[in-house]
């Protein structure tokens, strides 16, 4: 899947690297624009890894370090689940499990004007989009798509929210659908929202369905596809007794 980039005899693409490994040599690649994602640091002509993870590449020119942690580094256009911690005149302060609290402007809603500002209590769970992140500044969020429509963003009522690692939430949002969700969806009906910052919200009509779905997702992190299906079948067999 990864294209071979002609950097040098040993290429570190798709391999696990540790901090300090020099992964790319820019002096060999002239006249190319490269996009560096998370986890890579540029030091003149050498790109080195800042953390431990898998070096990934996607055409035409994106490199990044894939790793899974309990904290989240905000990136623009990510969909996250945030919790309101404070409200001010023009911003809500929202916790998104990152290094800084994030700001949600009071007008960042579809059809939002000064007259119909939503009132969120402290502790409200919101499904949000990250608009911009700059070093040193608090990240900015929004409850609308880039075009201005609401599109499912906003407060999530009822249900149950639990925390996972960022790696698991990325796997849950990948296509094709993760086997655990597919297998659960065949027998149970529930609603689920996954934030890339490691938070997942589940809602269903009966509490035990919520509990089963939450436990199944939490346990599925290190299991392969068939193992996930077996685990789900066992859980469903228990509750149907």
């Amino acid at each position, binding site marked *: 899947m990864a294209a071979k980039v002609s*950097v*040098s005899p*040993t*290429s*570190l693409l798709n391999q*696990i*690297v*540790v*901090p*300090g*490994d*020099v*992964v*790319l*040599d820019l002096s060999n690649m002239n006249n190319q624009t490269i996009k560096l994602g998370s*986890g890579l*640091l540029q*030091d003149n002509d*050498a790109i*080195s890894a*800042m*953390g*431990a*993870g*898998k070096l990934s590449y996607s055409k035409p020119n994106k490199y990044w370090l894939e*790793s*899974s*942690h*309990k*904290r989240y*580094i905000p990136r623009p256009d990510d969909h996250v689940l945030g919790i309101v911690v404070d409200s001010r005149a023009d911003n809500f302060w929202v916790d998104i499990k990152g*290094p*800084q*609290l994030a700001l949600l402007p009071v007008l960042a809603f579809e059809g939002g004007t000064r007259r119909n500002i939503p009132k969120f209590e402290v502790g409200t769970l919101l499904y949000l989009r990250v608009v911009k992140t700059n*070093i*040193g500044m608090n990240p900015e969020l929004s409850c609308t798509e880039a075009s201005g429509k609401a599109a499912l963003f906003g407060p999530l009522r009822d249900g149950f929210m639990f925390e996972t690692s960022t*790696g698991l939430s990325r796997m849950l949002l990948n296509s094709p659908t993760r086997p655990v969700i597919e297998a659960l969806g065949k027998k149970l009906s529930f609603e689920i929202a996954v934030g890339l910052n490691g938070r997942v919200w589940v809602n269903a009509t009966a509490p035990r369905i919520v509990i089963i779905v939450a436990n199944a997702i939490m346990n599925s*992190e*290190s299991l392969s596809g068939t193992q996930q299906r077996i685990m789900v079948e066992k859980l469903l067999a228990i509750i149907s007794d």
Partner: protein
Amino acid sequence: MEIDREDGRTPNQLRPLACSRNILHRPHGSASWSQGDTKVLAAVYGPKAGTKKNENAEKACFEVIWKPKSGQIGKVEKEYEMILKRTIQSICVLTVNPNTTTSVIIQVVHDDGSLLPCAINAACAALVDAGIPMKHLAVAICCCLAENGYLVLDPNKLEEKKMTAFAYLVFPNTTLSVLPEGSSVAEGEPVEHGIITSITHGVMSVDDYFLCVENGRAATASLSAFFRKNFQQSSSKAG
């Protein structure tokens, strides 16, 4: 004439290493590191918003809390905290998350010699587990000098008591590189030839000190390889 070590190791041989990461539920990164019977647990919380007073708000700030196995916290623990804080500050990239504080908590589970290097290795593994951006890893080793002038690596508590002098040395890890010349260069010398921290106790001559540094650096290759293998195993399991 070879020196006889009680547990039958050669002078340059390290004790069995064991490292596990992500063992604690609450902290954002955690690791336990053991060299022989010395075992240390490290937990990392952060980065959290806000720095302490008198700290530069344009850089990330680190605080270290050292908890001994028993007894009250005294001057020795405060010294370890300061050494660890300086070491961590020099290996982490401080400009990525300005105005944040990261807390590192070290809990000593058992002390059987070479405690500070074990703690530095554990803190390093926990920082990687938490995803804190780092320039390179820190690999720490204890090197000591016996009365007859022989050098011994990674002593246990009994050996440490009998030595005339010992040195805790921290080096950057050996890195893989796609650069043709092998590794990144800082001021004309490869980064791997650098030294991050050096703490000495007792009296030793300058030549003996340099011999300690050489032997210690040679041993860091095996410690770096152990770190790397540990990360690769845990990453491939979680995938």
